[in-house]
């Protein structure tokens, strides 16, 4: 079992999200995250899907996505050199005694404080999965009150070199 990030270009028409979601639920495929947004072309949307499965299942997922009529293109970015990022908002307990330490972590991870109150901080972080996993881990002990994640977005690198 491994996670694959799929970039799926679809016609931007009503029902397309439901077709994709229905494909996953109907066939029992695991979906970790799904992100949809318009592209520069007005009739086209880009979905970034993180799915989990062994090679045969991922192959089926890719083929089944291609089979959907509104699907224009499917790329498995995991097999290509790509960048992937997720943005997360985390609301964390921050009473006076903890605040300095939390701010240090914010600093180390180069994220931003976007909202503050007497005993809470809301932090915005962007990064790849390992960075987000790390900060969530570090903040857990202060007590995370709320978390909102965008799901992965990803893109193939222009030059196929490891940076």
């Amino acid at each position, binding site marked *: 079992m491994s996670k694959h990030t799929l970039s799926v270009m679809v016609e931007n028409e*009503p*029902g397309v999200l*439901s077709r994709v979601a*229905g494909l996953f639920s109907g066939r029992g495929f695991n979906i970790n995250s799904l992100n949809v947004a318009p592209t520069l072309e007005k009739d086209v949307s880009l979905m970034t899907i993180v799915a989990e499965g062994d090679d045969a299942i991922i192959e*089926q997922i890719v*083929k089944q996505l291609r*089979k959907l*009529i509104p699907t*224009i293109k499917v790329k498995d970015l995991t097999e290509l050199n790509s960048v992937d990022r997720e943005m997360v908002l985390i609301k964390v307990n921050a009473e006076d005694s903890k605040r300095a330490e939390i701010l240090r972590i914010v600093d180390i991870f180069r994220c931003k404080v976007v909202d503050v109150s007497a005993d809470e901080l809301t932090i915005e972080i962007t990064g790849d999965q390992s960075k987000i996993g790390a900060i969530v881990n570090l903040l857990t002990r202060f007590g995370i009150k709320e978390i909102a994640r965008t799901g992965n977005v990803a893109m193939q690198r222009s030059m196929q070199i490891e940076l």
Partner: protein
Amino acid sequence: MKLTGAQILLKCLEEEGVDVMFGFPGGAVIDIYDEIPNSKVEHILVRHEQGAIHAADGYARASGRAGVCLLTSGPGATNAVTGIATAYADSIPVVIFTGQVPRALIGNDAFQEVDIVGITRPCTKHNYLVQDIKDLQTIIKQAFYLARSGRPGPVLVDLPKDIQQQKVEFDYPKDVSMRSYKPTRKPHIGQIRKVVKLLKKARRPLFYTGGGVISSAAHEELTWLGQKLSIPVTSTLMGLGAFPGDDDLFLGMLGMHGTYAANMAVNDCDLLLAVGARFDDRVTGRIDTFAPNATIVHIDVDPTSIQKNVSVHVPIVSDCKPALAALKKETEGTLEEFDWAADHKEWVDEVQGWNREHPLTYKDDGEGIKPQYVVEKIYEITKGDAIIATEVGQNQMWAAQFYKYAKPNTLLTSGGLGTMGYGFPAAMGAQKAFPDKLVIDIAGDGSIQMCIQEMMTVVCNKLPVKIVILNNGYLGMVRQWQELFYDKNYCATCMDAQPDFVKLAEAYGAAGFRVTEKKDVEKTLREAFKVDKPVIVDIRVEKEENVYPMVPAGASLTEMLLV
């Protein structure tokens, strides 16, 4: 000229060459029905929407053209869902038009409103809700194109009532171009050459063919390859008729109720050529023991079918016809230099030996009428020149085993979904496509009662479908499983409380016959097939006859229960 949505729909159907549609009116399609008298498209009024969709499906399977049905919103549409799923499972081109409440009411839980596009999303190839009259003609064009091309399938178009009433200029598009849909039609020639190489090396090759050969009309190419290269052929239920059923190289059906020879051949072959088939669980049995010694070539137009259930060595994404034609072209030149028949003789002898050892058979001993005997008689009387529809269950398996299909499109059966009640309305649709052909529904007493209301439709439209009920007073296939695997606990399978089918036929204005003795079977069938109106022949067969061979669910193909 500006036309209403309703008028445009009918015009488009004419442009698509549709001569008949099956339907049932209602408030949300009344505008379309208002225009039908002015159209060249004939409308057959069914008695239940399930009848309409199965009839359109039967019409499509028998004729190879797209079937069409027209239904109202809400319950009209939901009643067709079983039939849509049936067509989807068997890849049958059907276009379904449903009425919808006016756009302003969509989402308001209006009277007879249902989200039929949502409901049918997983059981159609594609579906549309028309939201702008300007899109109507393009959508209809695409609907027919999608239904017929690539891997065929049902396409549903939902038409809000106000769209049917709005006007727009009629200008039907000549062709379709969809950047997101470009099915592969032709094979990669390198892959075909690989197959030729494998064929030359193989000692024990076997064709395993399915419904794809029929839907792409590749039967001639298949027959040529089988016969010229001396390769035995086994077929799925859906593929029967693509290779002549009486040819010595034909092993019959494989799988759960396949022949001994076919299942043994799959087990022993060293090259399995799967064409337009999808390794369904009813075919493969226990998957890890399926074709254990074979290099597997898989030709299919749908990439998702390939590598789905079994891993194959040579995948070929292509419509079956161009792929088999390419294979023919690549092997034609070898016929002179290479004696294929001699090369495969040992294998063919072995396969035919299995067939002699354990042919399809049944014990015809007692007084009673064996259902297999009835099917054999139907084959003898019709000389194989009939269109056979089946219901689902034992009747379906006997119809597949004991009738030898010589031509494609002559067996109409719900293979993938296994829909009881399919056969009769499908026969009705086939009869509409071929008014002069003998169309027989081989039925069980359980299944036939699921769409029996269409008796009125066939009588009033003079569609002389012949229904032969193999009446055993049981839901026989489930009873067979209960007998074999559930300690004969015949819970809810006894159906001996049943109508008098002869009187029922007569009540509808059809003819009815009953047969209770073996000596009357042939005579009565002959007589019934000559009647120029719909007929029900109620044949009281042996009650607890089983379908054999049988591979228990989940067992390997070689673990067959024989007669």
